[in-house]
């Protein structure tokens, strides 16, 4: 079986102006969304606060949970269903403005047990992160992404050329921006595991990019007479089968994770799904054409 027949010659580099325009548009949309939302919707990992995950024996409603929390002054906290409906699980999140975080989760537990009975409610998870720790983690997260990019820049420069590394980094920045943007547009919470997902996307998208680069390097030796544009195009076409196949197998497992992984993993898998799609696109339409655009300018 073959998805891409040998000898396929799609003129990818010919689309590069359109691709650059499209990418620019989506990246711009991401940035605008983040600005309009007033920054990312940070989870408690980064913003600080308290999160309690509770499971009820009987089905209940967000409103009645809030009513139970009213006596302790928490009726305005964020209550949302978690996972599937039949599981009766809810997340209660309290913002950092509440001063005494240390005993908050205990108060929430007691308030709910008064309303639903001791056996009617199970506290499955509590997380409390101080504002100071949240700030630390935010800084560390950004640093981690920057360090990963620098490490990759150095490695590719060593293995290929600096301009290749630059193309890869632009493609990576593109992938990261769009994934982060997708979180902003869907108003999903940005948490610690999402940073892990983004770093994975960086590694993954690079994987694709390098396979194409590797082919360009090889074809440059074989096709010395040909213009650079044709070398790039031939390389992308020759590796297209593999690019699609690997993306597909990875996508299969990520979709499975998205469906079966459960609450915490759900958003993580969502980030990977977006990242893999965007990453595959960028290694074909962004990373290599950028090198070409650079060469043409000279």
């Amino acid at each position, binding site marked *: 079986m073959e998805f891409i027949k040998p000898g396929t010659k799609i003129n990818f580099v010919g689309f590069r102006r359109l691709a650059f325009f499209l990418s620019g548009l989506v990246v711009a949309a991401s940035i605008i969304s983040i600005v309009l939302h007033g920054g990312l919707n940070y989870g408690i990992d980064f913003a600080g606060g308290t999160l309690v995950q509770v499971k009820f024996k009987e089905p209940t409603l967000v409103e009645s949970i809030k009513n139970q929390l009213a006596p302790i002054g928490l009726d305005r906290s964020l209550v949302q269903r978690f996972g599937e409906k039949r599981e009766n699980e809810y997340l209660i999140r309290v913002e950092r403005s509440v001063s005494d975080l240390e005993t908050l989760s205990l108060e929430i537990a007691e308030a709910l047990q008064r309303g639903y009975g001791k056996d009617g409610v*199970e506290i499955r998870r509590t997380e409390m992160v101080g504002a100071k720790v949240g700030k630390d983690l935010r800084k560390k*997260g950004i640093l*981690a992404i920057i360090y*990963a990019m620098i490490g990759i820049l150095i490695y590719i420069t060593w293995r290929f050329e600096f301009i290749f590394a630059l193309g890869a980094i632009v493609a990576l920045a593109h992938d990261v921006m769009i994934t982060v943007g997708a979180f902003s547009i869907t108003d999903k919470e940005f948490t610690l595991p999402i940073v*892990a997902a983004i770093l994975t996307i960086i590694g993954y998208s*690079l*994987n694709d990019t390098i396979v194409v680069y590797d082919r360009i390097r090889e074809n440059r030796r074989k096709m010395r007479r040909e213009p650079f544009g044709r070398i790039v195009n031939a390389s992308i076409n020759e590796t297209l089968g*593999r690019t699609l196949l690997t993306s597909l197998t990875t996508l*299969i497992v990520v979709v499975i994770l998205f469906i079966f992984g459960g609450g915490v993993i759900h958003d993580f898998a969502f980030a*990977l799904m977006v990242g893999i799609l965007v990453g595959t696109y960028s290694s074909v339409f962004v990373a290599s054409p950028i090198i070409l655009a650079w060469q043409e300018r000279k």
Partner: protein
Amino acid sequence: MTLLITAAALIYLAPSVVGEIRGFLGKILPQDKIHLGLDLQGGMHLVLEVEAQKAVESYVERIRGDLKEDLKRKRIYAHRIETINGDQLSLEVLGEKGRFDEFIENNYPILEEINAQDQGKYFKVILGMNKKQAEYLKRYAVDQALETIRNRVDQFGVAEPDISPQGTDRILIQLPGVKDPQRAIRLIGRTALLEFKLLDEEYGVQEALKGNVPEEDMILYQRREDPKTGSVSRVPFLLKKKTLMTGEVLKDAQVRFDDFNQPYVALEFDPRGAKMFDRITAANVKKRLAIILDDNVYSAPVIQERISGGRAQITGAFTLDEARDLAIVLRAGALPAPVKILENRSVGPSLGKDLIDKGLKSVIIGGILVVLFMMVYYKLSGAIADVALILNLILIMGALAGLRATLTLPGIAGIILTIGMAVDANVLIFERIREELRLGKTTRAAVDGGYSKAFLTIMDANVTTLIAAVVLFQFGTGPVKGFAVTLSIGIVASLFTALFVSRAIFDVLLTKGMLRRVSI
């Protein structure tokens, strides 16, 4: 070599699958099971900050009392000895300043003069603690807090706790399998400073509450909870500021039951404490002595007679658990400074089980789909890649057990991701082999060419992913670190299985002549 490594992985994996290995084999084979992270097995992750500055402040407060008495004894006249800015002393020295300076230098070398102003009638002097000394005190406070918390956790009884310092003033505590996280927090986070102070019975509490607290007195409360309604009331006590004794001189604390089967905590002092308690009770018969823990008055019994046996008790309306925990913190000693909880994550055991089930389900479904897909797309070669893939999973699990790494929920996600990516190396190789075949090479030459041409690509592509994984490991806390670990192990394992294992299978099939043409 391939067989050797696979066997090693299986041996390391065995304890996780079949449980404990008994008898002779149990002695020579590794027994480490795959270590589950707190998010999977349930438990508690705490980050505490030791407020070390408070240790310095309470030290300065203690010096203030001593200094006052010493100066009086030496007939150096000083007024208004007060603590300011938390850790400095301000005082007004009358008469010869030289004598005062000499006295401080000889008797309180840890104090330094920060400022001195000649106000005509007196010198206004501000003293501060020597910087080096303050630093030492802070470091000591953190070390001591670590030790004390370790003691408390040990006595509380948690299997495999991990308590370690983080940075300069933080403590990381991991308690797997804790069922009642709130109780654990109360046990770990409480300062547990036990103090004995006399009541000031010459002066009315009501008068003091109006704001007229005598200079050497203070007001503390007793917290009373009605066991039926749960309502809390606070009873005020007017106490002398001077602490007569602290929990430092305790030798032991045990839970006992009174005649009504009500638990109380029996205290036993060490010889020094017994002597102090003897002296205090002898001098204050018929007066009331308050027993105070963390600024909460537990009881204030009347001293009926001199007590010389070195024993006392703390009563209160305790539940058995409360009395037990109180005895533990008293035995383990007080924290030298209060701690603040910066981060607290606790997961109940049932949630962890759910997550493992869902994770396993995802691994199995994802794995089967990928395996089937490879067989359809690459036929026999795909099946070979599948063997490599399954081996890959075994290697990852074996490595996790062997390296005593921790499997977390994101770690499971990492494994699933590796399944998807592990086929990549094989895909690269197979696509190359197809190209070689199209050029009209023999099967043997095509396989050789495919592997050697794909080698560099595979290396380059995986090294960059590895860079991201290593950065992730450096940056990450608990769960994220778990992801980085499985991802890194997965990358190395997939390199090995693709470049050596599937290659070896091809070689065997080709040389034995079982395979004339590769179906790919």
